[in-house]
């Protein structure tokens, strides 16, 4: 049974509760002063609850008026006094006491119900407050998490956007390279072919000139011819022409090689998945970077026979180019590269090590973080190594780095040696 039920509205009241002595006593004393010699308030058991009497008590027959509370006899008023005054005073006193009973009961009932209602309303308020507080807390949490979630998603979106831009950039560079290469190929082709023809034509000219020199000419004509020969330094010219042609052809050949590497590197022509020789891909990247390599660069290669690896070739080009450009960009003395490849525990391990300044211990844990860069603002995107990391993860492998300041940096790439990959 709950607590409220202990507090019942309209509980039974006793006469003594409804007519406190302090209230009834002055009335009874007033009645005595008015002429009664004695007046008593009796309870339902006949015991007096209050009494008043005069000094000069006159013995007289007693009068009695029963008191009713809610229809129930609960006591009586008893009076003694002169027979001419007593009944009137008692009647008056009875009327006052009866009214007092009713009013006090009414007041108590009102207080009871009021207290009860206030208590109950207060409890209901507490309960509703508790529910509101709970609900507020829930919304607060939701709002806070929402904020966090929005931040997270925004960060992810930003990252994805930058990655996309980076890949887009690489793709555009590749396409540009491929386009340029294609456009260069044609002129280079006819330059090369014309140079060969030119060489043959010059041979003919030389033969004709030498034959002219041997002709029987008059003295004056011969001197004039020799004079011309010397002035035009034809001895030197005829000697130098084959070298020039050969060097030009060699130059054109180199240009054609570069163009072909660019095309191959950008893989613009390739299908999305190609079975790659990783060592050759690494060499292609080196060739693309050849122009940026400092003089006296030394490259050590230590490759075991590697299984072919199937993937989108543009991805591997990006990885190699990213790592090699870093080595080239950061080198502070004649560059020495150590490239290696071997098969270990079902994985292909490729290593690219340089002799550069190395990576400080405090930046080492952050080098794969997006937007982390040690270069000046505007120089590096902070995405180079992030892209390397992403690509290797996509291909089911990974990348680790070992570096001591001053001792260079060594990147170890791991790729699964199994079947086809993305």
């Amino acid at each position, binding site marked *: *049974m709950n607590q*409220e*039920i202990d507090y019942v*509205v*309209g509980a*039974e009241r006793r006469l003594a509760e409804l007519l406190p002595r302090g209230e009834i006593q002055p009335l009874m004393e007033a009645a005595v002063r008015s002429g009664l010699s004695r007046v008593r308030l009796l309870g339902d058991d006949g015991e007096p609850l209050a009494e008043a009497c005069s000094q000069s008590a006159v013995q007289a027959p007693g009068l009695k008026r029963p008191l009713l509370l809610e*229809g129930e006899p609960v006591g009586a008023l008893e009076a003694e006094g002169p027979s001419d005054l007593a009944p009137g005073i008692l009647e008056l006193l009875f009327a006052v006491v009866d009214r007092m009973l009713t009013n006090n009961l009414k007041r108590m*009932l009102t207080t009871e*119900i009021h207290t009860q209602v206030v208590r109950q309303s207060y409890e209901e308020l507490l309960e509703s407050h508790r529910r509101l507080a709970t609900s507020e807390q829930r919304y607060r949490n939701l709002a806070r998490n929402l904020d966090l979630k929005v931040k997270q998603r925004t960060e992810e979106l930003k990252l994805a956007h930058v990655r996309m831009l980076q890949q887009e950039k690489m793709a555009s560079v590749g396409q540009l390279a491929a386009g340029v290469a294609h456009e260069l190929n044609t002129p280079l082709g006819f330059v090369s072919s014309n140079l060969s023809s030119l060489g043959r034509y010059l041979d003919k000219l030389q033969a004709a000139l030498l034959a002219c020199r041997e002709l029987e000419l008059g003295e004056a004509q011969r001197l004039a011819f020799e004079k011309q020969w010397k002035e035009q330094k034809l001895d030197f010219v005829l000697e130098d022409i084959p070298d020039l042609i050969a060097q030009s052809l060699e130059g054109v050949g180199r240009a054609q090689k570069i163009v072909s590497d660019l095309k191959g590197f950008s893989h613009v022509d390739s299908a999305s998945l190609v079975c790659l020789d990783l060592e050759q891909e690494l060499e292609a990247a080196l060739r693309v970077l050849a122009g940026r390599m400092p003089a006296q660069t030394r490259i050590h290669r230590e490759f075991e026979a590697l299984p072919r690896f199937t993937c989108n070739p543009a991805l591997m080009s990006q990885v190699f180019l990213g790592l090699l450009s870093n080595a080239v960009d950061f080198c502070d003395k004649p560059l020495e590269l150590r490239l290696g490849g071997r098969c270990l525990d079902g994985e292909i391990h490729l290593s690219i090590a340089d002799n550069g300044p190395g990576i400080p211990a405090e930046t080492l844990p952050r080098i794969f973080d997006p937007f982390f860069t040690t270069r000046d603002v505007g120089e590096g995107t902070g995405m180079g190594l992030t892209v390397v990391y992403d690509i290797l993860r996509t291909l089911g492998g990974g990348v680790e780095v070992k570096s001591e300041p001053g001792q260079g940096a060594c990147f170890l790439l791991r790729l699964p040696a199994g079947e086809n990959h993305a």
Partner: protein
Amino acid sequence: MIEYDAFEKRLVLKVVYYGPALSGKTTNLLRLHELLAREQRGDLMVLDTKDDRTIYFDLLPFFLQAPSGLKIKLKAYTVPGQVRHDATRKAVLQRADGVVFVADSQIAETANNVESFQNLERNLKFVGLSLSRLPLVVQYNKRDLPGIVSSEDIRRTWGTTGIAVTEASALEGRGVVETFERLLLVLFDRIDEKIMLEAEHGLGREAFVRQIVRPLEGQELREQKEIE
């Protein structure tokens, strides 16, 4: 929830007049007060009202004594009908021994009746009581007005429930005493089961009702109306 003190030989019973606002609960008690003899009852106590609307409750007490000397007090309460006084209704409903549900017969008030009845069920549950075990009489009041639910409809609605239903016009004094008597009869049975009123205290069903409901001699309803 009968309040019985065997040592003091006292029994206190509580009857509550429940129902929607302005259905005539206080008028029921006013008429009982006027129509019943002064012996055996106290005065009607009307706690403070606001614009003649009950905000706390009204109380009409009755007193009788069984041949065994058992003192029986029966208090008839009204509750405030207005929705906002729900806390008061709960407080008054505590330990009720019987309920008279005063419904407004006007068809327009049907929804209010239903709502108030559901409120009664809810609040009884709140104070640990249940309609299924509580003596209940449903009174369709205001039978004197036009636009009211027909007697036939009332019978159809309540006939199957086994709940006692009366029709009344409290303003005219009709059906008020009858309603009260119906409740007293059901109430007597419930008390008798618990404390053997008839067997141990010598108070029979008829005597119980007759002692409480004692009409004034020669009282005419017409006169009552003129006093209004």
